[in-house]
């Protein structure tokens, strides 16, 4: 094509070399081929399209903010792992999504001995482990021996196998087995294929709740899948694990052999990893997601009016609080100062005005209102009383008060109430400094002695006061290090009580004592807020959080 004149050696920069023009062309060609090959390599390594368009059209698309760490039922469970696992694995008991109480799952029924020590579980017949590629069973039916094997795995003291001995620590001989002092767990017995007897060390009303997370796992899958076991869940649940593209999506499909006939109703359930709440909202608006679980801060009111028929809320089981260090610093042994903080903060303004109703202001005590024994007197907003208490604490008008730093975690930093708390306290004469720290640093730091005032929160798994008391007000376990031997003794006593009414009366007493001691400023109780598309049916909200919604009942009717 080129005209002869163009080929003259004068045409390029390589004026003096006659060979160079040709080799320059070769070099450019070489570079182009090299880059194309690199691009192709990247595409081919990245794999084929994982989710075809047809599949996407019939799938329920559920957003998850965090990709699960793994899908191993014996290892640590975060909300991210549990969201997936509870659809594949099942326990003897489960939560009733409507009441938050306990109902049978793979145990059809159970008897409890009068002393509260022996539980006899009658196992559901016809429950089979899931049929998946790579796992062959001698007998896929679930028997009492399968439960015993699974429970011993949970109790394994080897943390590369299990990090969850606490689910079953109430069982007789569990501790000795976990610590390697016994080869067997004394309290676990198979009476026959479908009867499992469990003996406890001491009566424990939490035991049926703890069993919710102790799943039955097929030994064959654990042995045959080897290193793939932790990313390939196989249980008895309504959904089969299909695939996991890390940081992208997880697909579950209907288990055709599920024991409860007619369930699940969905064919495909896709968990889409969307870390950012605004992106989630964009995807929800474009029908790329069927529910919206993270309402972006500052947009709650706008979304309620944009989607009036799709917005749902119920009271949750999380409590948010400011903790006072009990063992050191200015709050130690100064009840009046702790009380002054409580009366100085206007919770109604924080949550209903600044946060657009994203949480309920904590007008009662330390328990979320959905729990028994939650109804105690809170500390109302009363700045005058706060000033009096500050004087009584030895700091009239804030004079002589040592500098106080209020710590809060980075993921709460987008919530605008910290500065408001600062100015409310300043108004009664208490200057505080604000300091935010990234989440991992924060949670390790606030237990230390140099932190005297911090923001914290706690999510109960089920509506029982023990979910808060046993972890936050028992033997200094909370980062406040609050410890009242009288309260410890009452908590021990309550845990062992099998009579609900008597136990809840004792919980009321414990609650009142804690409020008397003032280890916290209770700030707010959570709301479970979400948007659900109108064509989604039977999406039963759970107070424990959206992740607890039993997906087997959910259907799509367009």
């Amino acid at each position, binding site marked *: 094509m080129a005209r002869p*004149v*163009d080929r003259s050696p004068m*045409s*390029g*920069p*390589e004026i003096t*070399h006659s060979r160079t023009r040709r080799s*320059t062309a070769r070099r*450019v060609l070489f*570079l182009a081929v090299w880059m194309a090959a*690199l*691009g192709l390599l*990247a*595409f081919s*390594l*990245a794999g*084929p*399209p994982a*989710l075809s368009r047809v599949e996407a059209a019939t799938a329920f698309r559920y957003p998850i903010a965090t990709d699960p*760490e*793994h899908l191993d039922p014996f*290892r*640590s*469970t*975060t909300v991210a*792992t549990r969201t997936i696992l509870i659809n594949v694995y099942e326990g003897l008991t489960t939560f009733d999504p409507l009441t938050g109480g306990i109902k049978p799952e793979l145990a059809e029924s159970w008897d409890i001995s009068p002393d509260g020590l022996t539980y006899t579980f009658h196992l559901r017949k016809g429950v089979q482990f899931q049929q998946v590629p790579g796992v062959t069973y001698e007998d896929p039916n679930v028997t009492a021996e399968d439960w015993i094997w699974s429970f011993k795995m949970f109790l394994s*003291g080897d*943390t*590369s196998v299990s*990090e969850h*001995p*606490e689910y079953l*620590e109430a069982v007789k001989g569990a501790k000795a087995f*976990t*610590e390697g002092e016994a080869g067997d767990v004394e309290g676990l017995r198979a009476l026959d294929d479908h009867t499992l007897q469990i003996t406890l060390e001491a009566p424990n009303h939490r035991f049926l709740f703890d069993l919710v997370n102790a799943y039955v796992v097929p030994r064959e899958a654990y042995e045959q899948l080897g290193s793939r076991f*932790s*990313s390939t869940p196989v249980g008895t649940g309504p959904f089969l694990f299909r695939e996991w*593209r*890390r*940081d*992208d999506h997880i697909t579950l499909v209907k288990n055709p052999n599920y024991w409860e006939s007619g369930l699940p109703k969905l064919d495909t359930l896709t968990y889409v*990893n*969307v870390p*950012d709440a*605004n*992106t989630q909202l*964009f*995807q929800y*608006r*474009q029908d*790329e997601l069927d529910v919206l679980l993270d309402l972006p801060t500052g947009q709650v009111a706008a979304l309620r009016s944009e989607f009036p028929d799709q917005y749902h809320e119920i009271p949750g089981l999380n409590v948010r609080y400011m903790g006072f260090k009990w063992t050191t610093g200015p709050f130690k042994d100064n009840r009046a100062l702790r009380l002054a903080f409580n009366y100085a903060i206007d919770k109604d303004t924080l949550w209903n005005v600044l946060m657009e109703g994203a949480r309920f202001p904590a007008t009662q005590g330390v328990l979320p209102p959905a729990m028994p024994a939650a109804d105690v007197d809170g500390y109302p907003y009363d700045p005058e009383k706060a000033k009096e208490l500050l004087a009584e604490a030895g700091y009239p008008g804030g004079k002589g008060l040592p500098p106080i730093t209020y710590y809060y975690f980075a993921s709460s930093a987008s919530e605008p109430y910290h500065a408001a708390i600062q100015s409310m306290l300043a108004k009664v004469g208490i200057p505080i400094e604000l300091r935010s720290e*990234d*989440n*991992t*640093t924060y*949670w*390790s*730091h606030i237990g230390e002695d140099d932190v005297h005032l911090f923001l914290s929160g*706690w999510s109960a798994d089920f509506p029982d006061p023990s979910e808060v008391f046993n*972890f936050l007000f028992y033997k200094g376990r909370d980062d406040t290090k609050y410890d009242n031997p009288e309260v410890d003794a009452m908590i021990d006593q309550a845990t062992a009580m099998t009579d609900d009414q008597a136990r809840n009366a004792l919980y009321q007493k414990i609650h009142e004592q804690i409020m008397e001691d003032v280890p916290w400023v209770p700030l707010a109780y959570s709301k479970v807020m979400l948007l659900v598309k109108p064509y989604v049916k039977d999406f039963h909200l759970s107070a424990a959080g959206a992740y607890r919604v039993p997906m087997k009942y959910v259907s799509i009717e367009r």
Partner: protein
Amino acid sequence: MTRYVLRRLLLAIPTLWGVFTIIFVLSYLMPGDPVRAVLGESYRRADPATIQRVRDRLGLDDPWYVQYGRFLGRVAQGDLGTSYVLDQPVRDVVGYRFPRTVQLMAGGMLAALLIGIPAGILAAERQYTWVDHTLMFLALVGVAMPVFWQGILAKMFLTQDKYGIALFPVAGYGGGEFIYMVLPSLVLGTHLSATIARITRSSMLDVKPQQYMVTAAAKGLSRWRLVMRHQLKNALVPVVTVIGLDVGYLMGGSVVTETVFNWPGLGRAVVTAIMRRDTPVILGTLVFGAFIFVTVNLVIDLTYAFLNPRIRYE
């Protein structure tokens, strides 16, 4: 040439060792307890005995020199270790995500070249006209706008029926389909395309008054041939330099782009690992990144010799 390559390869060893040591020291000094991340929400429910057993298994109570020796020994064997949290070898973490990051970077680079070079040529050809001024103004905006902000704007106006036209999916990898690549590539490439446009423009203008250009014009070449074959080719050497330098920028920018567009790449994995104090993943991916960076720089240096034969490595 061979000797030069060998010397560069040998020099890379102390460089990498220095980088590895810095990475180790930083991650060792980072506040926060990895056990907290390993146990997740179970941490506050776990009894102290379980927490101690996890610490022992991970070797977190070993002195720093034991941990440092273990780390260097593993790296020397090409073993990147196993994640504390993900229950997965770091090799797999990198192996799965790196191709996706390369894919995104290639897309960003392609977008940058497709936008930047034509814009630069056009601006040079229409120097001091409104075309030139508009293009250079846009280039300035492109350089100044942060990636995450561009990402939000792109999502708002190109994926939403409510605010604009829904041309593209909001986010995600979509199994690698082309349509999912467009927005992240554009956003990642914008900054670089602006730089390329400016460099191409000034370099084109440098070449324009050269004697060989005058000669070529005197021979009666068409405008197109003159610009494309004689002017552009000679103007490209500084552009290649900029591209080489900006590979590092693309890697950094891909971290933000991956987060904004839910792209399952290496950058997001590193950020998550840092949040979780997942030391093996932090160390492993950074070691891998350092290795790639050193290699890319070597390749770029060698590429100069291909593009410009006057440069010789002896």
